[in-house]
């Protein structure tokens, strides 16, 4: 008799002990699995940060399905349209015509014309060598009052060149024109989430003579356009770094990269560097260092030796966070991460904690589908994927660093850990919502 072997939980060896992790190739690659944690933003969510815009996706129907329902779940279907590619378009080579006439048809049917249109082309266009220049030139001529920009849904490029995520964070600002005259503005760019007002970064900027601009503050397209007047651009997420330099070059602005970190020395270096650029006197500035460390100590007293799991969606500085927690006595046991960019920190962790039972796990490896999620002990998780994989209801539900930064970010982290440790959550409900922080109609 046939038995459904796949339904059985299997205890499989997927993880790699910290001391054995190879930073360049931590895990086997091959077929990939997608776990049901959906809080990370996708290119639809990010595109809608441009106020008063309309998104048009051009692709085969299987690709359109995911993005159109992202928009539907956000409640933004009124600003979202699609153009379906069929075999005849591939064979006839009329991709340009389909895009131009399709976009024209959509615009003509919209009662309220958008200020900007983000057109997302896809892998097929890349392979068919679509003449994008012709498409945009024609559309700009037909609709001179609407600004158009090129966005991309081309996951086939995620292993070569800029990833779709990096590209999206750059193209988000491609609707800005170079301003000949700059003002005393300073932009934070490349974030989906608003940086906390209480963060050291924002407080420092507000102490300066500079006016802060961020796409997450913009309610109108005119406000968004003001960003081109700023003198400086700041980015702190790794996925925004390439875009930071490209945008700054195009808009003739000064790029400042202040990478997110949980390391006191790096945080302080970043803030001092910024203070120097903005000419802010920090001799009496309260960086909240002791407040942060005191709150972290309080969290440790409450959480004790409970096993902790962290994943890469919680913060891009995943290993920096792991080191902070280990250095402060927390019992970090599992780290879910597919690729490792913080190589120096990994080597440091190996040297100092290599004898501990800390195991690294992939999230996309197919064996994670059958790996038994049930744990022998209680787990406390930082991030949605680690909450799913450790099957816990106690987790901090944040993505992409949560908009926290600096010492204030560490304080917020500790506060959130205390709250999450004390209050259980409905993991299945929360982590399946798309785009944490966006509207979700589910």
């Amino acid at each position, binding site marked *: *008799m*046939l*038995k*459904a*072997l*796949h*339904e059985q939980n299997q205890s499989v060896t997927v993880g790699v002990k910290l001391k054995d992790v190879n930073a360049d190739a931590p895990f086997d690659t*091959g*077929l*990939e*699995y*997608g776990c049901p944690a*959906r809080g990370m933003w996708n290119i639809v969510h990010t595109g809608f940060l441009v106020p008063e815009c309309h998104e048009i996706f051009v*692709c*085969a*129907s*299987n*690709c*359109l*399905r*995911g993005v*159109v*329902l992202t928009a*539907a*779940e956000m409640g933004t*279907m*009124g600003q979202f*349209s*699609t*153009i*379906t*590619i*069929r*075999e005849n378009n*591939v064979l006839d080579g009329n991709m340009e015509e*389909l895009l131009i006439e*399709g976009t024209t*048809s*959509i615009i003509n*049917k*919209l009662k309220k014309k958008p200020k900007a249109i983000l057109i997302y082309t896809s*892998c*097929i266009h*890349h*392979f*068919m060598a679509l003449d994008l220049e012709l498409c945009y030139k024609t559309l700009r001529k037909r609709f001179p009052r609407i600004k158009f920009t090129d966005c991309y*849904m081309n*996951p*086939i490029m*995620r*292993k*070569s060149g800029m990833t779709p995520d990096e590209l999206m964070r750059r193209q988000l600002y491609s609707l800005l024109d170079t301003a000949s005259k700059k003002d005393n503005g300073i932009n934070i760019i490349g974030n989906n989430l608003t940086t906390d007002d209480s963060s050291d970064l924002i407080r420092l900027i507000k102490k300066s003579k500079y006016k802060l601009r961020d796409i997450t503050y913009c309610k109108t397209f005119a406000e968004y356009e003001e960003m081109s007047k700023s003198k400086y651009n700041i980015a702190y997420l790794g996925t925004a770094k390439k875009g930071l330099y490209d945008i700054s070059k195009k808009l003739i602005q000064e790029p400042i990269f202040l990478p997110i970190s949980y390391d006191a020395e790096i945080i302080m270096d970043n803030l001092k560097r910024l203070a120097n650029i903005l000419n802010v006197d920090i001799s009496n500035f309260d960086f909240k260092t002791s407040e942060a460390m005191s709150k972290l100590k309080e969290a440790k007293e409450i959480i004790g030796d409970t096993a902790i799991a962290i994943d890469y969606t919680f913060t891009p500085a995943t290993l920096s966070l792991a080191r902070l927690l280990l250095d402060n006595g927390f019992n970090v046991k599992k780290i879910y991460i597919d690729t490792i960019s913080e190589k120096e920190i990994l080597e440091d962790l190996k040297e100092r904690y290599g004898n501990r039972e800390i195991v690294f796990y992939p999230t996309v490896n*197919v064996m994670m*589908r*059958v790996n038994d999620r049930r744990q022998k002990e209680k787990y406390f998780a930082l991030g949605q994927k680690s909450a799913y994989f450790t099957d816990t209801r106690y987790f901090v539900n944040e993505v992409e660093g949560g908009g926290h930064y600096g010492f204030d970010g560490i304080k917020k982290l500790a506060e959130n850990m205390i709250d999450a440790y004390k209050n259980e959550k409905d993991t*299945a409900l929360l982590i*399946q919502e*798309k785009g944490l922080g966006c509207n979700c*109609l*589910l």
Partner: protein
Amino acid sequence: MKQIQTFTSTYTADVSGVPSALYELGGMSIMHDASGCNSTYNTHDEPRWYDSKSLVFITGLSEMEAIMGDDQKLVDDIVKVAKKLKPRFIAIAGTPIPMITGCDIEANAKVIELATGIPTFGINTNGMHSYVEGASEALLHFAKAFVKKNVSKVKNSINILGATPIDFSINGQIEYLTSFLENNGVKVISNFALSCDVDKMILAGSASVNLVVSSVGIKLAEYFQKEFNTPYIVGVPYGDRMKKDLLDKTKKGENTSEVFLSDLSKSYKDEKIHIIGESVTSKSLAKYIYYRYGLTPKVISAVELGNTYHGDIVKDLKVRNEVALEKQDMYIEDEDEIRDTIKNAKVVIADPLYKPIVPDNAIFINNPHEGFSGRLYRKQMINLIKELK
């Protein structure tokens, strides 16, 4: 203009139809795709993803592999995982880029089958057609590989064909239908393939009648008719009268030649009532409304039924339309054309994501369909087989 959705959604695609149909059958479904198909499938097309561990993966196709035509990597990666996980079968579904690069999915499947000894199906989806194509092809492959030949017919017995969550969600409709049939003396041999039992599916050839509950089941019904001489009836029994019809026709067994649905055309009056959706479920609803209220809605079948990768498009469409639809009904996929067709409608019954193209003065009745709006309105989905009287 065709191929444009200015205001509405798009239906689940063929590539998602494959794993959806095979989800509970103990196999391993692989979408030959870069990324995106997996999250679309397991977020919007697969309500069982969180709680059960079916093996559905992507190949993670890269630009370089596509350009170089590196099918060996596809084969090696699948063989490696198959040897570890030992699925009952392997199904490989194509997506747009493999279609463009001319990847021979069926040949690769044969190579994998030889290397693993596991039955392997290459399904030529390309992400450009509806779930009906992918799901029906997938079930057909499964039936050809696993359903036993030379079995004796069981009198007054039935298979339910074409049940997937894409058309029936997970709100107990198929379970209720099964209980209803069993409680009324009809033995349910198997169901293809929602809340199903694989060991019973291999005995599907013994059923005296097949019941097709969605377009997904039509190809399978044709196969069973040809191979096992099993007649089929088409429709979802909404309401008491349709349930009675179903029992009567099932009991006729091998002699039945009547298609359950198609008898509204003589009574049809243009009452400006439109049902938009998948053809079999929509037509069944139309028939329920006729029985219950004496009204004859027109069905707009918006889910593509065609089959472009097996040749005869026109013939295939004709067969399926004849099975599911009548002359007053229409097969329209394009948003503009649907909008134009319903511009004078008095009542429209459709998924809520169609609402933006429904005239303001028409009465709009929500009928959420996972195949169109995914999980968005799942909580509002009613077990129509149970609740309609």
